[in-house]
């Protein structure tokens, strides 16, 4: 505790992806974290997913490393089977009461061997598998579960009893971990802040009796279908229908089940279902080419980055059939369990179709328990029972010191949850800034064994990755082959090499066999290398004595012939063993960090990011190219959610001016950047000339602009305007300023979501609704038409769609193949093709408002090159990972937020900006960082001083020095370890072979090449 009574600890409630992200960020910033999870393991819904859209990444593969990180972080204490029962105290100093249920298994002693499960006689439906398989009363939710320990279920589930105290598990447990005498505990935690990330509940569709869920065996939920798709799921990834185990051919997805539905009081959109439905259909089709997926939908809400392209591919490449229709009822055919769907198509024609299987795309909702928990904490709930959030600061709750993140505030997809989680961490960190580091455990430095004089003793861990590798590569034979290679003293196979129990196994195998090299033959080192390196460190080996070889992405997933794939896996291991023999320990180099940030772009996102950082105690520089702050906030006149943009701007500028840590440079641009994470030198062109500033981290928040349309007569007639111009006009229109019958037509997706600009700008549907509602507020007798393709009112925005409809706004849908036409005259004649009638509807309009969407700043290209970060094909900045690293770049130390990432709403830009500030703070919180390990080193004896390398180095990291040796002056090259980024260009160019790159030395690469000559060609031996 600090002097002022502020406690440097945070309680994070909920162990889904949001809770885990908040915990990791706070822990990296130097706060103690209690991660409180109700269930026996963390991971949340994301752990149940098979793949994630739009990249089709394996969900568990990207989540598991984070879970393992959380479990290993010295600052994070995971409290499973725990629930918060009360929060008292004040911001900075709360007491959190936690009821911790007995696990009946000692986590420390459990080796996760599964003997207790094997002997347990009690069977219950497996919740993790959506009830499609059974589990025992002694169980682990899933193989990679964290905490990695079994649990004994004494409570049972509805209709099923739990543990009967037969004690078979006690006898079976060799380490003596099972303890039926464990008692529930009530614990009180002292924390400075609380983050609520309890998530939301998947909708239970059995209340919608018309779909027959629970009665018809072959109707499943989308979450159950994720498990059906999953290789580690109840059917090992073979698509079967639960009723009879038959392989379905015709599968129907029904969207909006429990969402956009007045009958169940869920009038909101669940925001992620359109995309996961497309994903499930695509993946199903990839599993079985014969499957014919049909998706019944109302709107396709593809409002995220690259979502439109994904839907397009689903339709065109994968042949997924989309039918716009709301299904009223499903019937089961008694004779074979098939399902009959009757629907009305867009033309009003009735159809009857039978399907082998129906998947209900369920949304998320609040249950009474969560809503009650909110009320108990004295927090407001909205009309749907979710926590009440304000766009001005979305992650803050009305009770100061308590923040929130994830689907607990609104149904949403993973990246939004991750951003909010980091944002909540930033806000908690700002509140507790004085106590940062006071309760943190410094990261352990593990004593390292000196292996330089030892002969290589190589251990190889070959991964099955469930069936991802094992199905395509004969793992046991590969292991057998590996055992026969020179210097290999150990080789074995693992089901999931990334799981926590395997990390323990790696450590003990290293010790038992005195290994001094480790090879993991599994997936790509680009994601999993850090995890295994850490395991080596913990076992007392230098982490760079690890080498990975990729037998999944580069082998089992891309070669369908099992024999050839197995040959290739053998070769890859043989090459890796050859390199491994030559590996050396690499010492840790530390570089100092300039604990100061640079934020580029002074719009809402930039201002919020800069304020968050300076509130957390970091000196921050905010650079804006225009002569005043605010960006597009200057053009925003009003909002539907009750924010006064002008007041907000004034408030932000006021806080910026008051903040001693924050320096603003307007009329200024970044001209040049050199350096690297923790040590950037920025040259900023200011009105008073260039200024040089040293910073440790950079956040890009350069925004986006409204696209200027070139079609529909824009520019030729003052009655044709863009959304923002309409907004400006309406803001000046007094009550009565619009006459009865005055007609407004809003045309959506203008020059957007089509060739040339193939993305959805996310905000324009709401922009049109906002203006339409304002028009109706000014004069209810004005006529308003919105011509749209898909109305992207995702999440709670849906309520404004409803409001507009209630106000009498007319919504007419058009398809891009039949674009509305515009003819100018006394009035503007807009013709839109109505699919229902099959004919054009003429509208005589007085105003035509074009929703033209947003375009990236043309300066992005230059900025991206300067900062060495990528742009996507549309010109927006491309983050490191669309799901789990939404504000990071691969380049360490550079982050992004706001509309330069993709067009977004003010509230979204705000939490993303806070998230970027949190991520930057995980760097700035440290006074030193570890330098790039794979840097170049010069052998001074071999160096002839020719200086070839100096001119080639892109980072000016090499200079030449003159030394006197044995009475002679010698010139040789010297590498600046902080500047070298480890590209190896100098190594390849050195004519004397005097420079080598750590981890990629010539002899290591040449050994791999040499090993190849003994390898099989593509056709086998």
């Amino acid at each position, binding site marked *: 505790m600090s002097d002022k009574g502020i406690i440097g600890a945070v309680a994070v409630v909920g162990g889904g992806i949001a809770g885990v992200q908040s915990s990791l960020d706070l822990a990296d910033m130097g706060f103690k974290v209690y991660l409180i999870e109700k269930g026996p393991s963390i991971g949340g819904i994301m752990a149940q997913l098979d793949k994630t859209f739009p990249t089709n990444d394996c969900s568990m593969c990207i989540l598991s490393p984070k879970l393992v990180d959380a479990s290993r972080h010295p600052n994070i204490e995971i409290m499973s089977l725990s629930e918060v029962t009360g929060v008292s105290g004040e911001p900075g100093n709360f007491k959190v009461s936690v009821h911790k249920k007995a696990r009946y298994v000692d986590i420390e002693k459990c080796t996760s061997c599964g003997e207790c499960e094997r002997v347990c006689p009690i069977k219950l439906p497996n919740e993790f598998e959506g009830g499609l398989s059974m589990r025992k009363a002694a169980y682990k939710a899933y193989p990679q579960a964290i905490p990695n320990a079994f649990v004994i279920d004494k409570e049972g589930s509805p209709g099923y009893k739990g543990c009967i105290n037969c004690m078979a598990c006690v006898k079976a447990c060799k380490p003596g971990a099972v303890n039926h005498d464990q008692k529930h505990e009530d614990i009180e935690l002292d924390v400075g802040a609380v983050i609520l990330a309890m998530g939301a509940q998947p909708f239970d569709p059995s209340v919608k009796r018309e779909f027959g869920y629970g009665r018809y065996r072959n109707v499943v939920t989308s979450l159950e279908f994720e498990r059906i798709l999953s290789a580690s799921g109840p059917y090992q990834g073979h698509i079967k229908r639960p009723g009879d185990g038959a392989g379905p051919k015709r599968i129907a997805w029904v969207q909006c089940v429990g969402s956009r539905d007045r009958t169940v009081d869920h009038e909101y959109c669940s925001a992620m279902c359109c995309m996961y439905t497309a994903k499930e259909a695509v993946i199903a089709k990839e599993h079985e080419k014969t499957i014919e997926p049909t998706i019944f939908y109302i709107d396709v809400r593809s409002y995220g980055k690259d979502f439109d392209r994904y839907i397009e591919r689903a339709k065109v490449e994968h042949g997924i059939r989309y039918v716009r229709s709301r299904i009223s009822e499903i019937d089961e055919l008694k004779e074979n369990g098939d399902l009959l769907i009757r629907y009305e198509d867009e033309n009003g024609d009735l159809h009857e179709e039978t399907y082998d299987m129906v998947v209900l795309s369920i949304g998320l909702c609040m249950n009474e328990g969560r809503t009650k928990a909110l009320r108990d904490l004295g927090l407001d709930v909205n009309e749907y029972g979710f926590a009440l959030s304000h766009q001005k600061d979305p992650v803050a709750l009305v009770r100061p010191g308590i923040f929130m993140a994830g689907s607990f505030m609104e149904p949403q997809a993973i990246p939004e949850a991750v951003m909010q989680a980091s944002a909540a961490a930033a806000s908690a960190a700002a509140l507790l800034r004085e106590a940062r580091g006071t309760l943190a455990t410094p990261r352990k430095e593990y004593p390292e064994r000196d292996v330089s004089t030892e002969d290589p003793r190589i251990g190889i861990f070959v991964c099955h990755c469930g069936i991802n590798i094992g199905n395509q590569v004969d793992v046991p034979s590969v292991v057998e082959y590996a055992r026969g290679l020179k210097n290999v003293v150990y080789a074995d196979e693992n089901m999931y090499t990334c799981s926590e129990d395997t990390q323990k196994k790696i450590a003990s195998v290293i010790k038992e066999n005195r290994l001094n090299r480790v090879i993991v033959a599994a997936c790509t080192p680009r994601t999993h290398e850090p995890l295994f390196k850490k395991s080596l460190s913990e076992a007392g080996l230098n982490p760079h004595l690890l080498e990975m070889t990729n037998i999944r992405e580069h082998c089992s997933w891309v070669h369908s012939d099992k024999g050839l794939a197995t040959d290739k896996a053998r070769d890859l291991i043989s090459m890796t063993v050859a390199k491994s023999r030559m590996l050396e320990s690499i010492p840790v180099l530390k570089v100092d960090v300039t604990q100061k940030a640079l934020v580029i772009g002074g719009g809402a996102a930039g201002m919020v990011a800069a304020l968050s950082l300076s509130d957390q105690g970091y000196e921050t520089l905010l650079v804006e190219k225009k002569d005043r702050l605010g960006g597009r906030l200057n053009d925003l006149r009003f909002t539907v959610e009750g924010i006064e943009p002008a007041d907000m701007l004034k408030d932000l500028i006021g806080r910026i001016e008051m903040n001693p840590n924050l320096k603003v440079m307007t009329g200024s641009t970044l001209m040049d950047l050199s350096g690297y994470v923790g040590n950037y030198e920025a040259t900023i062109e200011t009105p008073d000339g260039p200024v040089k500033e040293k910073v440790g981290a950079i956040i890009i928040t350069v925004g986006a602009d409204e696209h200027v349309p070139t079609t529909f007569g824009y520019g030729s007639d003052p009655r044709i305007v863009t959304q923002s111009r309409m907004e400006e006009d309406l803001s000046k229109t007094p009550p009565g300023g619009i006459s009865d019958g005055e007609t407004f037509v809003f045309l959506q997706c203008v020059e957007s979501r089509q060739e040339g600009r193939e993305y959805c700008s996310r905000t324009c549907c709401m922009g049109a609704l906002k203006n339409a509602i304002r028009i109706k507020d000014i004069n209810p007798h004005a006529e308003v038409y919105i011509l749209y393709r898909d109305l992207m009112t995702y999440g709670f925005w849906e309520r404004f769609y409803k409001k507009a409809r209630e106000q009498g706004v007319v919504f007419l849908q058009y398809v891009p193949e039949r674009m509305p036409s515009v003819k100018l005259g006394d009035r503007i004649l807009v013709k839109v093709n109505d699919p229902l009638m099959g004919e054009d509807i003429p509208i005589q309009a007085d105003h035509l408002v074009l929703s033209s969407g947003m375009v990236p700043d043309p300066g992005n290209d230059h900025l991206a090159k300067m900062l060495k970060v990528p742009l996507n094909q549309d010109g927006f900045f491309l983050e490191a990972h669309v799901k789990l690293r939404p504000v990071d770049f691969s380049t360490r130390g550079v982050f992004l937020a706001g509309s330069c990432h993709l067009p977004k709403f003010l509230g979204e830009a705000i939490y993303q900006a806070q998230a970027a500030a949190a991520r930057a703070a995980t760097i700035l919180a440290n006074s030193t960082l570890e330098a790039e390990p794979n840097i170049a080193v010069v052998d001074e004896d071999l160096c002839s001083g020719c200086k070839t390398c100096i001119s080639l180095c892109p980072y000016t990291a090499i200079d030449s020095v003159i030394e006197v040796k044995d009475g002679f002056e010698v010139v040789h090259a010297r590498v600046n370890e902080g500047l070298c980024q480890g590209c*190896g260009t100098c190594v390849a160019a050195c004519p004397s072979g005097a420079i080598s790159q750590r981890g990629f030395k010539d002899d290591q690469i040449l050994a791999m090449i040499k090993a190849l000559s003994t390898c099989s060609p593509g056709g086998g031996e």
Partner: protein
Amino acid sequence: MTEDFEPRVVGFLCNWCSYAGADLAGTSRIQYPPNIRVIRVMCSGSVDSMYVNRAILEGADAVLIGGCHLGDCHYLNGNYKARRRMVLLKNILTTLGMEPERIWVRWISASEGQRFADTVKEIVDETKKLGPNPMRARWDV
């Protein structure tokens, strides 16, 4: 040249683009011939001509050097250096009466899984036409 000749291809792929592109081919399950053996390097600019020579001398039928697209190099301009180096190497191989067409330089980004798979297919097909590396035949004697 026999019908069942299966070329062996060595691929030097840069960590940031081409290796990631090959990863994406995997996550997208895009199938391609299993003839390639990948050696991960940090940058195409670090691929020493000697590596390529040695691979050919050790009997590789083709060598791929994969880097980021020109202008996109993670290390600013390493791929330009790779390009220059490989042009030079090809010239030298020609002079020595060896086959420069066994050396392939391709820019494949992290988002181009399909391009990676297509590249491997193309190399394997073309190398089949070219026949086995004579260096390998020499060893077989």
